[in-house]
């Protein structure tokens, strides 16, 4: 009996750790991009400015962000947009602190790879966080001068989820009170109008 107790406990502990690890990893914050979308957007393309100029243009970068909106499949390739802003992990409806605009990059990726993305971000969804590796173009020749990344690989960092925007009770009370007041004033308006000029309306 004693011979089986210790290994048994070790096994249970290991199984527990295996089960808990993904849950614990999910809470770990995702490190920021390097370069971030803001840095990429600020890529100077003016010749002569070598401090920021052309630094990433044509280089392979690794970029992650929340997949937003939708995938637009065009033949063998597709457009996705990845936002690496303050709302990447939670949106405003879930309680994210307001921290400025959205920020992200347009990604041109083989359509086959996008099939792994299960959720795209919008009002009711927090999108899948996706990491891609690809070549950054400050003014893409293939896409009419667009700033984009041509991705060659894609992996999922965190799946997306449904978002519920709860209705605050005070809003319901306020709505009911205002409807009542509006109705009352409408009746008043109609009544006083008829009293002043029963035959002429304005």
């Amino acid at each position, binding site marked *: 009996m004693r011979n089986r107790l210790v290994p048994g406990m070790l096994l249970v502990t290991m199984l527990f750790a295996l089960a808990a690890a993904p849950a614990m990893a999910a809470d770990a914050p995702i490190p920021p991009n390097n370069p971030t979308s803001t840095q990429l957007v600020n890529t100077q393309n*003016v010749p002569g400015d070598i401090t920021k100029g052309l630094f990433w243009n044509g280089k392979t970068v690794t970029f992650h962000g929340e997949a937003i909106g939708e995938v637009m499949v065009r033949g063998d390739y597709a457009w996705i947009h990845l*936002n690496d802003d*303050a709302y990447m992990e939670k949106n405003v409806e879930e309680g*994210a602190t*307001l921290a400025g605009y959205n920020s992200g990059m*347009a990604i041109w990726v083989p359509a086959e790879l996008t099939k792994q993305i299960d959720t795209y971000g919008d009002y009711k969804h927090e999108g899948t966080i996706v990491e891609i590796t690809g070549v950054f173009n400050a003014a893409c020749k293939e896409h009419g001068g667009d700033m984009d990344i041509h991705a060659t690989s894609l992996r999922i960092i965190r799946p997306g989820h449904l978002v519920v925007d709860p209705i605050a009770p005070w809003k319901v009370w*306020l709505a009911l009170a205002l409807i009542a007041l509006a109705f009352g004033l409408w009746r008043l308006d109609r009544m006083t109008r008829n009293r002043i000029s029963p035959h*002429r309306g304005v």
Partner: protein
Amino acid sequence: MIVRPRKEDHLVIGKYTGKVIVGVGLLMCIPLVTSIAFAEWDTAVDFIIAISACMVFGFGTQALCRTHKDLSWSHGLVVASGSWFFATALGALPHFLSGHAGSYLDTLFDVMSGYTTTGLYLLQDLDHVANGLNMWRHLLTYAGGQGIVVIALTFLFKGTAGAYKVYVGEGKDERLLPNVIQTARAIWLVSLTWLGLGTLFLGVRGMMLGQGPVRAFLQGLWVFMGAWSTGGFAPQSYNTFWFHDIGYEVICVVIFIAGSFNFAMHWAMWTGKREEIRKNVETISFFITLTVTTLVVTFFLAQANIYPDAMSLFRKVFYQLASAHTTTGFSTIYSRSFVTQWGPVGLIVTTIAMAIGASACSTGGGIKGIRMGVISKALVQDVRRMISPESSVIMEKYHHIKDTWLSDGLVRGAMTVTIAYLTLYGIGAIIGAMYGYPLEQAAFEMVSACSNTGLSCGITQPFMPDLLKVVYTLGMWLGRLEFMSVFALIGYGVAVVRGK
């Protein structure tokens, strides 16, 4: 001596302002229905609150302000600007209740930007915003482009002479048809027809680009509204860069250039006078200045080797400049790219295009083509007078729907308003520069706000200084209403306080 307004004046103004606000409340029913259709319950409650608030204000003022007096000119101007003021304050409620706004000032900025068809915004996390709220944002530009007063005229006013005075107070003075109510309805016919066709084209193109049908047509509707109203709001934070497609860009360009044309010109084209588009001083002036600014920027960016080939260069330059000149504000480049890729010359020439602006009596802003045309002709006239014998009589004329002789009074009116715009642009640019922004960027942003364009070079941010938000909001308002009605509102206030 300033004559203090009497009680009757307050009553007239109150009554008609109330009517316009009831109209705003009714308009909000469209986003309410949208929210319900997409099961966005919290947003639906936000709109119920906002609609009720509008009705409380509207019915309340109408009940309080009982009068049979009709509007005079000064009343009309005050009603136009006063109703814009209250429509903004109440229209901001859905934005504020959504939780996406940093402050009430931010929502006032956004809603004023919507009504004035500017297109700058401070709303945060736009990519996660409800369909109902997006519907309201775009509807604001469509309604504002028509004119909130035009909407009220169509549905809520009787055809009195006073109604015309409010119409003019909103910055339009073209009589398409003898009766102002008929004029308002003609404007609606043109806008709604374009709405149907434009949404269809954009929706179909969206589906061809890989969008699902619901998103394609919903976004097509919104992009149409942003384009036609020359507003510039788009459903995603990426603006029209989202679509990455020349076909979509071409459709947008056609819609926003058409939207920037004078409604009287549309009406002329629609009633058989199809040569109007090539004879009209505004379209001629617009095409000349757009071509010149496009070629100048093309030249500089070609030398700087920003874009890899001629087609990319033209696509980017032309789209941005057409968007600027029509005061639309759609873009297919990031805001900061105006600074980092286009550089000072690109920035300044774009600023000039925005400053000149679109046609009069359209959804566009800026100094406007007709004034550019009148002033140019006045210059030609003065030069001719100088070089001609003293006894000769030199008169110039221009064509706008009909031929008109250039009179000194006409030229004076054009110059006064032009100087007012330039002064406003200058004041805002200097205030921006005082906050530390480079002058050409501060000028770009202020001109963008006051000409109701909405392109940004990165200054407009939720965390920008509050005073700058106020300056841009007031600039948008003054620019859209062409100064007179806002001055009338201020004058009214002064007369109440100091009049005898």
